[in-house]
């Protein structure tokens, strides 16, 4: 069964304290892995797409990396405004087509000043 697991469930950092969020997945054939940011009471905001092992994407203080079994979202010198829930999702191959997204339950990040 296709599955996405995110860890930790919650992470508290001091401003400037770098860390990483993990997304491990088991899918029959990966089409794409997606990272989203979600603020309380709002819809997820698209951040990155990764689709091949070794790929990296960066945006401001965030960098996403991908291996064959997991993805990491590295946060360098975080600021309080980076506080949010970060969601990981995978799109698997279903037959010859693209499958629907399978979401992890998210990591809630809190950055204290």
């Amino acid at each position, binding site marked *: 069964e296709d599955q996405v697991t995110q860890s930790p469930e919650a992470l508290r950092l001091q401003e400037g304290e770098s860390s990483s969020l993990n997304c491990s997945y088991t899918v029959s054939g990966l089409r794409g892995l997606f990272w989203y940011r979600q603020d309380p009471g709002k819809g997820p905001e698209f951040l990155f*797409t990764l689709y091949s092992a070794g790929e990296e994407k960066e945006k401001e203080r965030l960098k996403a990396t991908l291996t064959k079994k997991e993805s990491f979202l590295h946060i360098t010198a975080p600021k309080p405004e980076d506080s949010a829930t970060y969601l990981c999702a995978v799109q698997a191959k279903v037959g010859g087509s693209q499958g629907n997204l399978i979401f992890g339950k998210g990591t809630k990040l809190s950055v204290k000043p």
Partner: protein
Amino acid sequence: DVKVTQSSRYLVKRTGEKVFLECVQDMDHENMFWYRQDPGLGLRLIYFSYDVKMKEKGDIPEGYSVSREKKERFSLILESASTNQTSMYLCASSPTRPGAYYNEQFFGPGTRLTVL
């Protein structure tokens, strides 16, 4: 920028009422989705549509129906609302790009539905 809008941010309904949630996207995307999000359960797919007048069941379709009469609009219908349908409802859309390996989804702001 892709824009997905939902008709209401907050909605309060009574048990047994018929509830309509509307979603509109302005980027000419072929695919549209309805999810619900609950604490500890994450996002769960209710229904999706790959084309006008077409619909497919997701993981939790029971108690819901959908309608897609126009490409830009996708409606979620709760035929007889129940308290266990209290949740955050999220609409998303994505393009179909011929030959593309993947397609990311873009989400609306969500509707927080409370059924009393």
